[in-house]
């Protein structure tokens, strides 16, 4: 068991892509930390840096307080689960599990015992003499986990370990991983692009974009207090509705305008340029007459069972924060209770709590709401 500290890491690939820039991160001993981000954000590279499969151009990597930059992978005491599992196809499951122990020259009897224990813990006992080619996807995934676990490593690295499983199995294995990690208490770095995986597994989640950490914190904190537009938009489906804040009247205080609704801008650290509303912040105005409301026309209605998602033409200058600067977003979304059922073309009044509005400055940074 060990903590992992990354300090000022830089990595530029020979093709000029800056995969990691000035990145620092501390993972506590025993913590489960998820690296979340879109593809190409540098999250897998970060994992490979910790494993020793890549070398940083600058910065320091410490495991258990010791600098490991110069150590090759085999001398870092980390175990890794690869996206495609990377099981050795010419070896049986038993030999795959034994391989890392053989490399450490453990006595035979001890290897056999630990392989047996790991196999039992993961329900692999019946498969020990099969080769990876004879296993199902779920079984292979389990062997890959076993090969990492059997070493009792100081740090556990997982690179999208669930992405090759079908939806059902993913749900099941996700639960198993969470339980396993809680039981063993191994420091774990887990890479994924799936926000549900990140939110459900991570004690803390680091959201990455373009090689930098956008925000680091507990999952619910990221959702409720996104540090910037990127995090706000990346977490949540459908994503947060973001639109420009308009100034109304010369010299007067800025006002948020959404269709006919007017919301005075509260006292903030700086002038807001963007405002955001999560789709679930909307409700049907009929039941909340005291709230500001906006009349919209439903364009698409997705009936999802426990809720319905209504897409409507944006009544304000909406933007897509995940795209390049200020790309207009034609539609906004609202998540509403399943009843009353709405139909496309129907017009409806949507109300929202002024306190639910997220405020961002011109650079996309979140502005603290009054009272928080």
């Amino acid at each position, binding site marked *: 068991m060990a903590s992992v500290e990354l300090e000022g890491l830089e990595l530029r690939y020979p093709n000029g892509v800056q995969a990691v820039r000035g990145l620092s991160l501390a993972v506590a001993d025993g913590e489960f930390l998820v690296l979340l981000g879109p593809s190409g954000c540098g999250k897998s590279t970060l994992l490979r840096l910790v494993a*020793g499969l890549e070398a940083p151009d600058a910065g320091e990597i410490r495991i258990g307080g010791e600098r490991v930059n110069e150590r090759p*992978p085999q001398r870092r005491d980390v175990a890794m689960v690869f996206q495609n599992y990377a099981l050795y196809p010419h070896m049986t499951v038993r030999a795959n599990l034994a391989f890392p122990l053989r490399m450490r020259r453990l006595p035979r009897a001890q290897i056999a015992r630990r392989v047996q224990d790991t196999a039992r813990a993961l329900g692999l006992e019946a498969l020990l003499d099969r080769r990876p080619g004879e296993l199902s996807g779920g079984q292979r995934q389990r062997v890959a986990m076993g090969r990492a676990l059997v070493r009792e490593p100081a740090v556990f690295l997982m690179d999208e370990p669930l992405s090759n499983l079908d939806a059902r199995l993913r749900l099941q294995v996700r639960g198993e991983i969470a339980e396993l990690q809680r039981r063993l208490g191994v420091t774990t770095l887990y890479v994924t692009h799936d926000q549900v995986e990140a939110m459900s597994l991570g004690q803390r989640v680091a959201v990455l974009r373009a090689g930098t950490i956008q925000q680091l914190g507990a999952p619910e904190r990221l959702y409720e207090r996104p540090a910037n537009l990127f995090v706000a938009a990346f977490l949540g489906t459908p994503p947060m509705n973001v639109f420009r804040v308009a100034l109304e009247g010369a010299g007067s205080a800025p006002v948020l305008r959404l269709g006919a609704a007017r919301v005075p801008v509260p006292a903030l650290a700086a002038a807001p340029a963007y405002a955001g509303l999560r789709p679930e912040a909307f409700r049907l105005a009929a039941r909340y007459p005291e709230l500001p409301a906006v009349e919209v026309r439903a364009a698409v209605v997705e009936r999802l069972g426990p809720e319905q998602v209504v897409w409507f033409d944006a009544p304000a200058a909406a933007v897509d924060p995940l795209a390049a600067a200020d790309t207009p977003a034609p539609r906004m979304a609202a998540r509403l209770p399943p009843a009353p059922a709405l139909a496309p073309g129907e017009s409806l009044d949507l109300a929202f709590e002024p306190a639910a509005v997220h405020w961002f400055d011109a650079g996309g940074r979140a502005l603290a709401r009054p009272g928080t």
Partner: protein
Amino acid sequence: MRRTLTTGLRHAALLVSAAAFLAPVAFLVVGSFKPEGRILADAGSWRAFFPAHWTLDNYRDVFARVDFVRFLLNSLLINGAMVLSGLAVNSLAAYALARLRWAGRPFVLGLVLATLVVPFEAIAVPLFYGLSAIGWRDDWSVQVVPFVANPLSIWLFYVFFAGLPRELEEAARVDGAGVLRTFLTVVVPNARAAFATVAIVTLLFYWGMYLWPLLMTAGPHARPLPLAIATFYTLPPLRWGDILAFGTLMVAPVLLLFILFQRAFVRGVAATGIKG
């Protein structure tokens, strides 16, 4: 109707071609069992391919006239050493080129690509001068060492290694294996097809080599089979039966090998053609 006709024509064409390809081989094998007097006499008729009288005299003659076993052992030693050392040397080099980061990599890769187009015949005579000057000739090692490093073998291995998923080796590194260990325990077992291809292609291209032993050997003691059949042919008296027996004896093991590992041969040749 039309379909049966074309199918019939196709089979006829195949049959005639097969006969043309088989005839010289049959001529060789059948002739080796004929009495000397019948060989030329039968050569112009169907009897060339069907012996009326079987005899083993020619085979007895071969062993009486020359040291066939020595030639066979020479060939086995030369080709065995060439293939085995070639597999080791070229696979290691290809792995270094395909996967490892080191300073001379682009230079060596360039050298391999440049030498890939140089046929041995362009080198044979200058190399003959050079090796003669230092007095290295007329033994089995001079027929092996110059052929161990082989650009085609390196290239075939290189293409194969470059196509292997990297994750496997990375997993081995994380699991605690060093570079050589990773190569031996993870890469080699998954590259058996490449090793078979390279072994077969090496054998196919080099076992019949005639020019080099002709230049480099003087007496019979280091003479391999392909040169031995040619010198046997010029050894008076000219007895065709003996020559055909010698020829049959020398190709029999290779033909057997070919028939046993036919698929691997075909795969090897196809790989050379498609990746070469």
